[in-house]
């Protein structure tokens, strides 16, 4: 259970750390950088998570780096998540109108100040709902660690079944765990959203 949560948090963190510079690059970068990022995102979004995990787990030893299955999962899912999160941030930043920056500059703010004080606070609000969504996706995808032999909650369930022979009950329990965590995530980030809510910023989207 802790392993599942650890995978989720590390993956999300890695995805976030990668996604921010990627989204900046995609918005403010030159043509070449933009093209590279577009390809990066396209590839990671087009290949099944499982395949990404296997490629990392079996691929890196070829260049002399051996990852534990846990690390391979976090890196694989983290890379995939970065491709999604960067789209979330990019969309959010782009949806803040250009005139906001112009108004900031007219007051004498630098580009950096305008970004930090004007664009970012708006973009983060817009990004929060899809980001929450990505959070729950990562939680669910952490179950794929099963395939690399990581003892996350699903595999743990399998071990218990080997002695107790109650697959239905055990797997339902596992499902309940995920469901409860998903609800907790949605509720608490939903509360953050409410706290930050501002008239004129009621963006709602259902994205998978």
């Amino acid at each position, binding site marked *: 259970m802790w392993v599942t949560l650890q995978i989720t948090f590390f993956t999300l963190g890695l995805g976030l750390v990668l996604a921010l510079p990627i989204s900046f690059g995609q918005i403010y970068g030159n043509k070449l950088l933009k093209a590279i990022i577009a390809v990066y995102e396209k590839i990671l979004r087009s290949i099944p998570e499982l395949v990404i995990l296997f490629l990392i787990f079996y691929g890196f030893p070829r260049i002399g780096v051996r990852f534990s299955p846990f690390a391979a999962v976090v890196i694989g899912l983290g890379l995939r998540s970065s491709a999604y999160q960067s789209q979330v941030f990019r969309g959010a930043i782009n949806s803040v109108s250009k005139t906001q920056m112009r108004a900031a500059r007219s007051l004498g703010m630098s580009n950096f100040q305008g970004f930090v004080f004007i664009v970012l606070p708006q973009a983060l609000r817009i990004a929060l709902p899809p980001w929450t969504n990505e959070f729950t996706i990562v939680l669910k995808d952490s179950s794929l660690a099963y395939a690399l032999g990581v003892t996350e909650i699903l595999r743990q369930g399998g071990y218990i079944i080997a002695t107790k022979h109650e697959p239905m009950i055990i797997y339902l329990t596992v499902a309940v765990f995920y469901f409860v965590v998903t609800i907790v995530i949605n509720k608490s980030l939903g509360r953050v959203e409410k706290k930050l809510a501002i008239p004129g910023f009621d963006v709602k989207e259902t*994205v998978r």
Partner: protein
Amino acid sequence: MEKIWNIAVKYWPKLLEGLGVTMEMTLISVVAGFLIGIVLAIARVYGNKFFYGLSTVIIEIIRGTPLLVQLFILYYGLPPLGVNLSPFIAAIIGFAINSGCYQAEYLRGSIQSISGTQMKAARSLGMSKTEAIMQIIMPQALRRVIPAWTNEFIYLLKYTSLAYIVGAPELMAQAKFIASRNFQFFEVYLVVAVIYLVVVLLFTKIFSILEKKVEIPGLEWVR
């Protein structure tokens, strides 16, 4: 590079067979999921308290748990209760239900984005509620949901890879089989990655062309 090429040359019938199963599973699940989705969405938007509650609970539970866990429940959980499903069938049932719940949510968004006056106008012509839903609301809602629906197809195409864990003979399973023979795990999965990439990009392209073709002015897509 040469190794990779050799794998493709030597094992293409196996890979093709796997891809065939993958496509088959995707298609069946997406269509079955579509039917499930319509029912759930209508129940959630227009149903009475009971149907609204029921469909909401189903949708939230399925969307709140991993697909892999759902597959395990179907494949490992059911046999002791006397229900034995083949890996292929168990996987398809799992995918269809899972996808149905996501599709229901897209559809719901789409239905709700159609203005309430459409319903009123239909009722004012003397249509029953059911007729209004079927004749007026759904045709518009379905058209708007097409992009979400094509996305869903791509998602399923990728997520069918989970079926190999319960033993369905799709592309990943074939890859594992090949790799366990020649021990070139990385190369084999690289080939598989390229296959998925090509297929996904191909379908993305086809869908975007189709979407342009069936677009109607004023009924822009909801994404």
